[in-house]
């Protein structure tokens, strides 16, 4: 048997990334229909009135920022684009000031989310068995025990930051366990996540340096798994084969980067937004405490109303699409949150109806890129809320003005001061 030396050289050997960059434009938005930016504070604080306004008058907004892009706000348009992998590419799914070269398709930097057909199907198939409902159920007990230990640590405090001290830690611990990474590295993961998703408008050199830091870390972990194989996802990917060969090193590292980044702040955001809603809506909180069996239904409604994730696509070729004059390499911001609040699709779309029974929401996307971690996210969210409501049934916002939200394509509370216990 030969030595597995795929990972010895590190990733920089592949040379500097080609692709195109555009001028970075930041600052207040003049008109959301023609100059939108999901990275400005107004959007982070409350994007829903902006989306509702655009849906009523536009409904596909444009921006010259990020080198040009579009923002559909109707469910129907979001769904059509999610299904149309012929005309919209996933070769970059984070709308930024950098477009990877066309040759990156169909694999992309972080397969399978960055992949297009036909490669996408095969790369995704490798991951699916690890993320079925049955497979993730095996992690429920450990997740529940970990949530309890987090609440134990809050004991005695009147005011806690539920985003920083509770929600954040849960997905970090779960994904570190699944990948076989040291649990004490958790704090580094938050930084990686922030760099990838919120650092979009940083200067390119800084963005690249931060990505290098992430991939340096991942290659260290991968090499350690090559030397000491174990029963986890990293070893699984190191050993996995596609078309009769082991995976390319950048496929292994890219997929692990994806699992790490996408597994963390999405679920962190969903847990935080749910607690935020319950903190400011005593009637819903009291009802869930009294009727724990309603939680699975309520959770879907919270996922609909506060869907954390927005994806992006790149237009493949110049075309007129439902009245929008799209050009090759324009971005499309695929706002699942906006689709989830389209009154054409949902009754009382702007309200949280925690016993909503018919709820065809798209928080986890639609079509071939359906979130591969959706069963894991649902398990974590359910357990996190069950434990919290059981241990801390009475809580409220300590200071509504102090709540802060992440900007960019994954939105959720990053500071969430809650007052625990009696009024």
């Amino acid at each position, binding site marked *: 048997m030969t030595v597995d030396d795929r990972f010895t050289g590190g990733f920089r050997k592949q040379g500097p990334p080609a692709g195109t960059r555009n001028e970075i434009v930041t600052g207040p938005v003049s008109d959301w229909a023609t100059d939108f930016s999901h990275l400005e504070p107004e959007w982070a604080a409350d994007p829903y009135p902006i989306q509702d306004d655009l849906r009523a008058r536009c409904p596909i907004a444009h921006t010259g920022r990020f080198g040009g892009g579009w923002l559909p706000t109707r469910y129907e348009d979001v769904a059509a684009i999610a299904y149309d992998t012929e005309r919209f590419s996933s070769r970059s799914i984070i709308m930024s000031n950098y477009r990877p070269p066309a040759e990156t398709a169909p694999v992309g930097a972080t397969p399978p989310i960055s992949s297009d057909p036909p490669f996408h199907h095969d790369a995704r198939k490798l991951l699916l068995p690890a993320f*079925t*409902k049955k497979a993730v159920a095996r992690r429920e007990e450990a997740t529940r025990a970990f949530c309890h230990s987090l609440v134990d640590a809050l004991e005695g405090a009147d005011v806690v930051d539920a985003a920083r001290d509770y929600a954040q830690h849960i997905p970090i611990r779960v994904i570190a366990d699944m990948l076989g990474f040291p649990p004490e590295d958790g704090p580094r993961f938050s930084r990686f996540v922030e760099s990838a998703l919120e650092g979009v408008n940083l200067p390119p050199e800084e963005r690249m340096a931060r990505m290098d830091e992430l991939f340096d870390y991942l290659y260290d972990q991968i090499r350690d798994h090559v030397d000491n194989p174990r029963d986890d996802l990293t070893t699984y990917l190191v050993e996995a084969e596609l078309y009769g060969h082991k995976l390319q090193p950048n496929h292994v590292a890219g997929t692990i980067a994806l699992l790490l980044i996408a597994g963390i702040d999405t679920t962190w955001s969903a847990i935080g937004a749910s607690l935020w809603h319950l903190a400011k809506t005593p009637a819903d909180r009291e009802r869930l405490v009294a009727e724990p069996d309603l939680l*699975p239904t309520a959770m*879907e409604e919270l996922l609909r109303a506060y869907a954390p994730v927005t994806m992006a696509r790149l237009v493949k070729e110049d075309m007129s699409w439902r009245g929008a004059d799209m050009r090759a390499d324009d971005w499309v911001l695929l706002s699942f949150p906006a689709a989830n609040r389209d009154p054409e699709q949902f009754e009382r779309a702007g309200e949280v109806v925690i016993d909503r029974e018919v709820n*065809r929401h798209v928080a986890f996307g*639609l079509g*071939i890129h359906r979130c591969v971690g959706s069963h894991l996210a649902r398990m974590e969210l359910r357990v996190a809320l069950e434990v919290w409501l059981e241990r801390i049934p009475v809580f409220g916002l300590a200071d509504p003005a102090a709540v802060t939200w992440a900007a960019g394509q994954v939105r959720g509370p990053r500071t969430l001061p809650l007052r625990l216990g009696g009024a």
Partner: protein
Amino acid sequence: MKVQIDPGRCQGHGRCYDLAPGLFEEDDEGYGRVPGDGAVPPGQEQAARLAAANCPERAVVLTEEA
């Protein structure tokens, strides 16, 4: 009443086997599957309708028989 899953549309969201575990199950990759012939036993019609109404991909096909 009968249920079926359109495999060309199903993407494994799992809403069907969450909401109607008696009618649907998960395959090894998380896609929905109907064990048996899909005939809905008496008393499970509501669960079948709920599953169909919540599938984001509209992959659950209900056939109502007289």
